[in-house]
Every structure is written in C-alpha cells, then in structure tokens.
C-alpha cells in the first residue's frame, strides 16, 4: 500500500488520519501507554514513536488486521485473542485493548505456552486503567489452554462451575 504524508508524521498519524484505521489509539503520544501498539513484521512497536517513513517495505498489522481472520475463518470464529478478551470481560472501556491484544498476539506467536510471569512481562508495555490486568491475563491464559486442549483455570469469582468450560460446552 502507498500513502503520501508529511515526512515528520508518525505511523500512528498515518494510520488514523490518512488511512482511517482508527482502531489504533492515542493515549499519550509519547510512548508511555502502549495503546497505539501495532505489529511491524510481527514485532510489537509503538506507532506514536515510529516515523511512518521508516515503515516503508515493512508489514504492519493493526487491530483491524486481525479482523479478516474473524471473517474468513471457517467456523466464523475470531482470532483466539480477540475472542478470549471478549469472553473473559477483559474489554472494559476497550481503549487500551487494541494495543494490548496485538502485544498478546505477538507473545503467542513467539511462545505457544508462556507462563503467567511471561504474560505479565510481555504486556507490561500496555497500560490498562480499568481491569487491574486480571481478566486480561485470564484471557491470554484461556487462549493458551484452548490452543493446547487443556482445562482453562476457573476465576476466583466463580467458585462453583467453571464459566469458561460451561461456555465451551454450549
């Protein structure tokens, strides 16, 4: 894809203002919050600190880029990361989550079964103010459990029946 933009524009500006890809969010515009995280050749980068001109020839994946997977998959299912974030309640205000989900996607692409500490580490560049990260970590762990066919862990708030298993049965 070719796009013309002033040379000082960041990747985030080009995505949001030239291409209409507003799924990538601006929370601070200085690399603190991670809401603008996109994947460049599969690696998470901060679009607000990346000059658009430096992305020539690179493959950029935004949250909208996970959408075709949602539509194209045979079962009509989403990217497992998007699906799990929705199922686990990880999307409260949702503003940090496009960046968060791309960081999670990059982690799972690189490591099929990360530990909880590795998940927390991989997401530490994405600030979330709503969830206390608990349901986000649960969402990533649900992705992992389903990918390897393991029983997903039940959250503390559901001492009886495991709500994740219940939905899987439906």
């Amino acid at each position, binding site marked *: 894809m070719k796009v013309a933009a002033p040379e000082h524009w960041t990747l985030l500006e080009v995505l949001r203002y030239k291409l209409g890809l507003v799924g990538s969010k601006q929370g601070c515009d200085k690399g603190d919050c991670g809401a603008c995280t996109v994947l460049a050749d599969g690696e998470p980068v901060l679009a607000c600190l990346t000059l658009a001109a430096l992305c020539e020839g690179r493959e950029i994946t935004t949250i909208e880029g996970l959408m075709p997977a949602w539509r194209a998959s045979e079962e009509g299912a989403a990217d497992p990361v998007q699906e799990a974030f929705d199922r686990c309640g990880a999307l409260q205000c949702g503003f940090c989550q496009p960046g968060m989900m791309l960081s999670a996607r990059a982690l799972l692409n690189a490591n099929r079964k990360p530990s909880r500490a590795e998940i927390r580490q991989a997401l530490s560049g994405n600030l979330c103010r709503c969830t206390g990260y608990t349901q986000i970590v649960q969402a990533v762990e649900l992705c992992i459990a389903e990918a390897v066919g393991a029983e997903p862990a039940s959250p503390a*708030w559901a001492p009886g029946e495991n709500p994740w298993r219940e939905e899987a049965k439906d």
Partner: protein
Amino acid sequence: MAARDVHGVEPPWDDGFQVVGRAQRKIDGVAKATGQAIYADDVQLPGMLHAKTLRSPHAHARIRSIDVSKAEALPGVHAVITGKDMPIKYGVIPWTPDENALAVDRVRFIGDEVAAVAAVDEDTANAALRLIEVDYELLHAFLDPHESLARGEPAIHPTPPGKKPKGNISKHVHLSFGEVDAQLADADAVVEDDYFFHGTTHTAIEPHCAVAQHSADGVLTLWSSTQITHYVQRALARVLEYPESQIRVIQPCLGGAFGGKSDPFALEFCVAKLAMKTGRPVKMLWTREEVFYAHRGRHPMYMHYRTGAKKDGSITAVDAKIVIDGGAYSSFGLVTTYYAGQLLTGPYDFPSYRFDSTRVFTNKPPCGPKRGHGSVQPRFAFEVQLDQVAEELGLDPIEIRRKNFQGEYTRTVNGQRVTSNGFLQCLDAVEKASDWKTRRGKLPYGRGLGVAGSMYISGTNYPVYPNEMPQAGIQLKADRSGLVTVFTGGNDIGQGSNSVARTIVAEELGLDPLDVRVVAADTDLCPVDLGAYSSRVTFMVGNATIDACRKLRALVVDAVAAKWEIAPARVHMGLGEVFDRDDRARRMSTREAFHLAEAKHDTLGATGSYNTPTLGGDYRGGTIGASPAYSFTAHVVEATVDDETGRITVENCWIAHDCGRALNPMLVAGQMEGSAYMGIAEALLEEHGVNRFGLHAGPSLLDYRIPTSVDTPELHALIVESLDPEGPYGAKEAGEGPLHPSIPAISNAVFDAVGIRLTHLPFTPGKVLRALREKRGAERSPGGKPAATHVAKGQD
C-alpha cells in the same frame, strides 16, 4: 418513591433467572475487540477544524490584557476566543458556579485555560497559540492549604460585593451526633493520630476529546468523552446562552473516566463556541499533559482522628477534623466536604460521631470526584486507626470489625438508612481465603496480612440540581422483527451499564440477549438519566429498565392471553419464546407475540423510571450521602516489606464485596479487581503533586507511575450477595466500594510485617525506612515504645 421504583429480588418468571447471574459477554465486546468501537477522537467530520488551548504559565495572576491579533492573522487560523466570548460562570454544583470556560480576568493555577484557537490543523493552531500576547500581573500563589486557611488575602475567588467574605474557604461543614466528648472521656482506650492522603488522579487511557458541529438550522451537536451528558447539555445552554432544546450532546464510546470526566470541561464550551463562530465542525483533543492539568482527581486531605473504645473493642466515639486541599475551583467540592464525614458511619456502629471538614482553595489543578469520591481518604484514616485501637486492646483486627458491625436494616448515627448488609460475610470470605487465622501475626518478619472494611453508596438521593423528576428514565421500543431497543440516558464508561440494561431486558421479556440493542447517552434520542457517577447506574437505571419492561410485558402477555383464551398469569416469556406455563407445548416466538400485541395495542413501546425514596437525616446536609442501598467490602492484603530498601510489595489482595445480586458476575469481578488495583496504585506508586512554583511535578503517565501488569499483584475477587430489597433483583453497586479498603489494608499489613504504622500516603520507600529507623530508636530507648501516638485513658 412509588410502586414503580421497587420490583423485588425474585426472577420475573417461574423458571428462575435465564440471563441474570451468568457471565454474559459485553454488548460492545465484539466492537471493542475488533477496533470498530468509535471513541470521540475517532469522529471525523467534513471540513473539521482542530482547536488548541493556551494555558496559564502562572499559578495565580490577574490578566491585564490579551492581544490575539497576531494569532488571528496567521494563515490557516479560523477563530480565536478568550474569556470575553463566554463570561458566564458555571459549576457542576449549581450553588458554586466559579469556573469560566476561559479565564476572564484571573488565572488560578498553572494550566488554567486562557484562550482557544481553531485552525486547519493542530500544528497551525499550536503556532497561533504562541502568537497570543497575555499581560499578567502576578499574585501570591497559595500552594499549602493551611496557608490558604490562615490567610484569606489575596482571595483566589474574590467575594462578590455585598456577600460575607469567606477568604479562601471553599466549604466548611461541622456536624455532631451524640455525646462525643462524654463518650471519649468515658472510653477505656482513646487512640489519636494524624493521617494524610495525598493527591491522585484518574488517568483514564483516553484523553478528553470533544467535537462540535453547529448546523445551518441552528442545532448544536457535541460529541464528547463525558460521563454525564445531561449536565454537559445544561452547562452548555447556560454558558453559551443557547436554548437547551437546540443542543444535542452525544457520548460516543468512552475510554475510561473514573470520575475524571464528570465535570463540564473547558474544551466542551470551546469547541461549541468555535463551531458557532466558524460554521465549521471543530475538534479538540487534549494532550496527556493537559489531562493532568484538568485533573478533578482525589483531594489531598489532612486528617486528625480520635476514636474511643471499650475494653471489649466496641467503639464509643469518633471525632474527626479534616482539612481538604481543593485546588483552584469548586467542582464537586461542596459534596466532597460532606462526603468526607458523612460516608464513614458504616459498616460499624458509632454511638457518637463528630466531624469538622474544611475545603480550601489553593492555586493548584482543581480536585474533584475520583472513584470513591470523598470517602476513600477518611476510610484510610479510620481503618488504620481501628487497627491501632485493636492493637491497644490486644484484639484481632478482624474480630474488632465483627464486634462493631452495625447490622442490617438499621440507621446510622447520622441518620442514614441501611438496608441489606453483607459485611460479616465479606469478613468471613477474606478471613478464610487468606488463611488469616493461621497466618496473621505468625508470618516471618517482613511479611504480613492486613484487613480493612468499608461501605459505599449505590447512587445518592441528592440529584445535583434539586428537582422532583425521576433520576433515571428508560424507553423501550419493540420491533416487528423481534428486536427490542433500549433508549437510556445512562453513560456506559466501560463499566458495562449498557450490558446491564441488555441483561435486564433479556431477562424480563424472555429474549436472547442478542435481540436487545441499546442506544445510550444521546440527549436527542434518550430520556434523561443523571449519568455515570456515585455508583448509581446499575441500581437506578436497572430499576427503571425493569419498570419499563413490566409495562411492555403486560401488553404482550395480554395480547397472547386473549389469543389463547387463557388467564394472563399463565403466559410466560423465556429464551425467545412465549409459552403457556400450564401447557408448555403451546408456544410462539416472541416476534409473533409482538405482532399480536402491536395489532391489539398499537405501536409497541414503554417508558420506565426510577426515583429514590425520601431518605437522609433531618438536618442541613442530611441528604448528602443518603443512598437507597449501600455496598460493603472487606479486603485482606498480603504484603512484604524489604527493610533494606523500604520497598513494599503487595503479593495478594483478597477482595470480598457485597454487591447485592451480581447481575453479571464477570463484570462485577472486573469492577472489584479494577478498584483494588487503583487503590493499591494510590498507596504505593502514584502522586499528583506540584513543585514549589505550582507546576505539576510530572504530567506524564511515566512520571505519574500508573502500574503495569508486572506491578499489579494477584487480585482475588470474592463476590458476596446480600440481596437488597430495593435494588434491581437485589443488586447494588460494585464500581467504587472495592477501592476503599485496599489502601488501609496495606498499611495494616505492613504493621503485621515489620511493626510500623504508615499513616501518611503514599507509602514510599523513604517513609518506610524512616519509620523503621524511628522504631529501632524507640526500642533502644528506655521507655521501649514510641511516644504520643497511642494515648491510653488518663494520659490525655
């Protein structure tokens, strides 16, 4: 309160709850997961201009003159406005209108708004700001609230002619209940101490943003990241002197708020005025730095508490004196000053109670409501003091809390009605989950457990501007397709209020939740709701939704009963069908039932409302803090203290919260975890302060240090359900209460870990090391115990 306001705790149909009580996905989950949700900054309109704000570089100054001619002459600039364009003052509380959208003759903190420019793009607007010349006459800047209190001149808000001068006092409240002095004199132990709560701010990840359009037919439309559309509409009408009926306010998807988007803000007035002036749509997006200046966050409070108790631990008296640093404007400060005292009278029984709270103006970013408005600070002080009382009397901290439990269906010392109260179950839950009995006081040096409790309101009787109309309104439209659309003025700020509305409609009308859509927070389309604050939405919007559903349901049931020639009581709705309870083979789809009902009763819809019962003490301010139901919380925190570095680490936080019935336990847990996270962050990391010039100490997310996923401990949400007789199916609030105990529970855990009492926030390594040094010094001294903090009877 009318019959329409109370609907009982039972499921609407004989088969039990079908939707309520289960982990339901959020109504906007897919939109948010795919990046399709539209937030204010995603709104793009043809011909849209971009606006920026010139802010004061001085903490306190008089404006002698402003020259905007060079800025106006810059190519690409469409309009420049100053305070003269909007001189009418406003304030979210109608009794204290002391704000101007742009400063008229005085600036009161570094960052106060002075002028705004609309231009073809942000770069041009920023360049124009640098061309505006402002001549300031500097005034003495008050940065210490005690100085403001002692010295009324120069007044930050000069008293209007003919009114009694108040100096720099924003609000003073003194209330006394019972025989405080006599009870203190008669107590077996009296603990007296000072506590300090620093300033903290919300830092929703979405910065404030507003877009305005003034159409040729005169309608002014504002898309804004607000959590209270209704008040913004009213404030715009007042300041712009424009008919309220010609103003439409829309809240798009909102990227978090936590109280930080509940005042009307300068940017909303500025984009509206600039759109009216230019005839073009105008957007203003604040930078992260500007969001820190706008603030409206947690008030710093200097608190002195005395608590008297009997030998068995029962509290006899509480006496509080509180100085509140309000910053430059009133905001919700009148309410804050009351809340600082009024919301402490549970879950414990106080036979006598007195508080004296004074909010003063300073030349700092204005404080306002942050999650747990006005009550998080006194709760911190009191829950630490209660642990000190337990220590003095040799009691277990959980036991002293049980001992003082106020009970359910009772009245507090300040006249508030308490209904359901699950506090004891909360204590039981955290005691068990943390293995308190075998671990507290027995863990190795450096590791400890601490407990704290709290209560919070589920909305308030006080509707900000006095009126007799409902606090919440709902409209339902039943479509021939089988779809039901809910129109609500309620603001979904990420907490999931639209999802709650859908859950209730699906339950009441027996629908698949996917056949319920919600249109919210658009003043043209939706009935008035007072917005997302004071944890009122589930309780009030929920009840209004049930009210509307029952009216709509009666029409459908009537039409089906007539068709089947059976009694209406036999007609049931569930899972997308309508059936005969006594002959379940007889059924039809809800869609067909809607057709029958529309044919019989005309276009299908219903309205519903909720208003609070008459509540509160019979004295001035007695309704502030009165709520139709209170939530209750207990936390146990497990913390470690490194005595070489002074660093505190929270390892675990068990959160037990009585939310009444959990309509969607997954969303309730999300609120509990998010609350506890925010409290822990305030205790250990965050500080919203200014330097000696009044300049913000670090207006960025990096400097302000909000916690990352590696800084956040394991949070365990334990839901307690004490069904409330007036809540929707028994539900109460969950979004603010569970923040409160996190902070004192950390202090109390640190005491268990290393024997020091942290009474001044934030709990920095420096404070921990100092306290440890003092403790060692005291242990070496002949008396063996630090002096002054614990005053036993007779030594006063």
